[in-house]
């Protein structure tokens, strides 16, 4: 295998994995953050409802 071309092949796969993996990780982390914030609202609502 031509070593110079191997670099092009590796670079292609690494860029694809980093770009798509980064996107997937970003979407997952955003989901976790949204869940946390919604849970806070839920807790605050429960506190208001249970207040005398």
């Amino acid at each position, binding site marked *: *295998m*031509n070593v*110079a*071309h*191997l670099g*092009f*092949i590796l*670079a*292609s*796969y690494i*860029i*694809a994995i980093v*770009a*798509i993996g980064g*996107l*997937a990780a970003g*979407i*997952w982390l*955003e*989901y976790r953050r*949204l*869940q946390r*914030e*919604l849970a806070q*609202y839920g807790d*605050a609502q429960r506190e208001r409802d249970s207040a005398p």
Partner: protein
Amino acid sequence: MLKYANPTFFLGLAGRLLPWLAGATALTLAIGMWGAFFYAPADYQQGQTVRIMYIHVPSAWLAMFCYATMAASALGTLVWRHPLADAAQKAAAPIGAVFTFVCLVTGSLWGKPMWGTWWVWDARLTSVLVLFVIYLGLIALWQTIEDSSRAARAAAILTLVGVINLPIIKFSVDWWNTLHQPASVFRMDGPTIAPSMLWPLLVMGIAFTLLFTTLHVMSTRNEILRRRLRRLAIQAAAGEAQARPAHRLSTSESAP
């Protein structure tokens, strides 16, 4: 149909579907990568560089497929004004932009050793670059317009205008004299590539489609939750604003 497009129904469905979608994506990606690296032979002209095709071509398909999905959602936004259609369209734009970016970069990395250049302004490359710019423009549009219903309408109109670029991308290699090779898989007279190269490419195409579906469902779910959170924040702020004048009134009444 509209019952299944209910945001609450969608959230439940997404929770049940996502583990299966993620598993199917991982499995087909593993089979496709094995096929691309260990089953498919080196090309007689391109040598081992042909392995770049197994991510470049599915990325290109998905860049266009994602835009077609957005166009269908844009119709849903404009015709039925369905909130899930707008959420699905907004969620798809960054995914489409990433697939188009991967397509452009891997194409460039293939072009340098094969064509001797990173980039040429031929019709296929330029029209895919235009697609990438449209994706960025749509993302910017949603970020810029604060009123979400106005942003949805504007983005839907821009998306439908941009659909004209899809047939230009597809047929650019037939309509103009381009450096980019003509279609070799989806042709009227059948694929022109060897079956040993074709099936890993098709498996990678299926894997990328499953990957897009997984990411799109996840991202649409995020968009629904983000809107729900914004609504709760507005309700909480409105509740505080109502409480404040009442408090002031009660203090002025108690004053001597």
